[in-house]
């Protein structure tokens, strides 16, 4: 079923070719100070399938957006097709032959497949008075659909198509143009396990058509099924670029997720016998979490490891009360809380550190004081009707002092003036000030400097010592291994393994995180 090359033909390019893309010391620092890419250098050879692997926050998306012309790098050079590459707009990248299939589709729901595909180029089907010849347009798209052996029709409306077919339309959009450099951003994230195999064959087919494919994924089974070379990104840096034949899944997983942490930090054992939170067989209505169960003890830190997109966000939202369950129960100290909303859950003793501090954890335009009292404002500690500003200020100052938040001038400045680390410390301080029975922390030290990270970790230890339970959802395996008494790895919405300290092995955990072990998916049957 291969398109082009007969079965058995070597899938990697062995002849010497000039790279089609060369990145030289490309760095990108966002205006808020986040260093997404640090001197990334690698190259992509013509006609190969080049996989870029890494966890969330490794910099993959930033890199791809730069290649597609959506962002500009802060420094470094890029050469594409032997010429200097610095597009100011996606239209320039498209003009050079680059196409990107985004993770979040940019399809127009109310128009047809063909219209979405030819958008921007539809003029070629126009007659003199401007009428689009639908028949011609449809047949032009049809011929590509047939070549790619897809099962959609050019006059289907997008809103009627299921997700996997919508993805096919996104791919069509890219291949319809004279694209010879195709970027696929986590394409299997939206596919069911049984659809992945066909998809991977399809990608190989694209390569066999003569195009270069850059394939972003964290699922190593898939990567090893089709990639010719693999570049590993970790925390904005390139760990290395390897020919597939020179590495195996395990070593790549290790390089992606990193080796053992420095032993100066390790989990403390304050675990008590009483169970404070009990989650039984939960599945959420979006279908991501599947029959997840676990118990959290008082004083315990329970870590959830996994690459983003495998259910961590859904777990947080379900515990926060924003995402409804389709089945299962959540019990806090024996009483069920699934029907409670966020405010009610806060009242019974839950606190939340969200992973999106700018959009959900804080109000960046409002002052530090206003942010710190959020959630506490109705507790009565600042007054009943009016806000006692001296109490509010004192409360804020105590958080600032305890958590070493560097605020500069005064506490009335807007929060967005703070650095990422200080914002996070404020957020953490505020949530811990609830003295919650259970703290749900998602990515608590993302984008935060080393000192702030240590401080936040210490505050978690203090909290668990006092008997609170902590659910730690993090893509940073080191962090989890430093703090958690137990680790559950999430992959495709399921708990695939549970480990207890001190039986932590980064390598083993990384296998579970990347699906090499523990998942029964078809992708693992590829050798």
């Amino acid at each position: 079923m291969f398109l082009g090359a007969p079965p058995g033909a070597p899938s990697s390019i062995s002849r010497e070719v000039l790279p089609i893309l060369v990145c030289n010391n490309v760095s990108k620092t966002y205006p808020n100070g986040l260093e997404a890419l640090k001197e990334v250098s690698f190259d992509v050879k013509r006609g190969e399938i080049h996989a870029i692997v890494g966890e969330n926050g490794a910099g993959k998306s930033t890199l791809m957006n730069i290649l597609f012309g959506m962002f500009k790098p802060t420094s470094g050079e890029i050469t594409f097709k032997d010429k200097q590459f610095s597009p100011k707009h996606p239209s320039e990248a498209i003009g050079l032959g680059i196409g990107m299939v985004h993770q979040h589709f940019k399809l127009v729901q109310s128009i047809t497949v063909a219209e979405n595909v030819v958008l921007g180029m539809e003029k070629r089907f126009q007659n003199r008075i401007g009428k689009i010849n639908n028949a011609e347009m449809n047949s032009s798209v049809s011929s590509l659909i047939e070549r790619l052996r897809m099962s959609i029709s050019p006059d289907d409306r997008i809103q009627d198509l299921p997700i996997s077919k919508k993805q096919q339309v996104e791919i069509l959009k890219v291949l319809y143009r004279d694209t010879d450099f195709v970027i696929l951003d986590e394409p299997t994230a939206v596919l069911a396990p049984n659809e992945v195999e066909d998809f991977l064959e399809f990608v190989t087919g694209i390569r066999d058509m003569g195009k270069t494919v850059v394939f972003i994924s964290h699922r190593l089974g898939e990567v090893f099924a089709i990639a010719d070379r693999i570049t590993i990104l970790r925390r904005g840096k390139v760990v290395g670029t390897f020919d597939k034949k020179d590495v195996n899944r395990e070593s790549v997983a290790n390089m992606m997720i990193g080796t053992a942490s420095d032993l100066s930090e390790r989990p403390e054992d304050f675990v008590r016998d009483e169970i404070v939170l009990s989650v039984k067989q939960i599945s959420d209505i979006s279908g991501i979490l599947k029959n997840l169960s676990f118990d959290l003890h008082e004083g315990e830190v329970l870590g959830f490891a996994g690459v983003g997109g495998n259910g961590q966000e859904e777990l947080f939202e379900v515990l926060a009360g924003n995402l409804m369950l389709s089945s299962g129960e959540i019990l806090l100290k024996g009483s069920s809380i699934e029907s409670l909303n966020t405010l009610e859950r806060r009242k019974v003793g839950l606190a939340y550190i969200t992973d999106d501090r700018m959009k959900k954890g804080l109000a960046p335009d409002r002052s530090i004081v206003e942010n710190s009292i959020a959630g506490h404002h109705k507790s009565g500690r600042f007054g009943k009707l009016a806000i006692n500003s001296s109490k509010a200020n004192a409360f804020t100052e105590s958080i600032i002092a305890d958590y070493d938040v560097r605020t500069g001038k005064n506490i009335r400045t807007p929060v967005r003036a703070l650095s990422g680390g200080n914002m996070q410390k404020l957020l953490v301080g505020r949530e811990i000030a609830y003295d919650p029975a259970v703290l749900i922390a998602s990515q608590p030290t993302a984008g935060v400097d080393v000192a702030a990270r240590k401080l936040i970790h210490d505050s978690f230890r203090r909290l668990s010592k006092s008997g609170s339970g902590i659910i730690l959802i993090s893509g940073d395996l080191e962090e989890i291994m430093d703090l958690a008494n137990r680790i559950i790895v999430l992959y495709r919405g399921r708990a695939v393994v549970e480990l207890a300290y001190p039986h932590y092995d980064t390598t083993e955990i990384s296998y579970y995180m990347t699906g090499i072990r523990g998942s029964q998916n078809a992708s693992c049957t590829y050798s």
Partner: protein
Amino acid sequence: MDMELITTLFRTSIRMATPILLASLGGALTYHAGIINVAMEGLMLISAFFSVVFSYLTGNALYGIIAGMMASILISLLYSVFVSFLKANNFAIGFAINILVSSLTLFLMRIMFQGENAFNSPDIAPIAELKLITGNYFLDNYILNFSILTYLSILIAFVLAFIVYKTSFGLRLRVCGEMPQALTTAGVKVGFVQLCSSVLCGVLCGLAGAQLSLYNVRMFSREMTGGRGFVALAAILISGGKPKRILIISLLFGVFDALSIKLQSEKIAPQFALMLPYVMSVVVLLLFHLKTRKRLKNA
């Protein structure tokens, strides 16, 4: 029923409907591009003023129409620059423009013509009618002898239906309103598409204004657009921007207008007829949202 009465009602309806139709067609274009145009009132008003001025000065209605259109286009360019490029608030700019035009036209009227509330002159050349007496009652009163802009507006409705749904410009227009990022990733500039739609809206509102001041009446008076810009908006919302539906809705609104005038001489309150366009728009939107909610619940 009296035949004369029906004929008068019909003719009045058509007369009232024409400016609404023209403005709605213009606003429909910006609507598809994602802008709810609240400045149509101002666009029509400034065109009404300059149409009268130039028709008066040159004695030729055509020059009046062209001048009105140009004034309207200028204002719509202003609107577009602020909303599409400077990303200012659509409603604030729209109402600022309406207030600007309303005051400006009175200001100019005083300065140029010393008129306080209206400017009237026998030298104002009106828009021509398609004048033809065939002897057939039906033909003479129901098909012929209307303003040429009326015929033009019906033609434009069909032309726009074609443009919006069958051409590449129309495709880009609709995508612009529904998902501008799709346009950007396809390499098309969103601001440009919105600008085009705004200019075309200016053209059509320009025609609407000219029809008001050079045909429906033959003068310029204070606030003579009388809220028609918002009736047009109601028409756009009810018809979802579809030109052929706008044609029907505008005619319907014209009937309401005509009825309200007629009702005034009877004992029934005309205001309910005048209220209908706005009430209808809210009801239609309500039904649409109820249906969507039901669909989501059942999904």
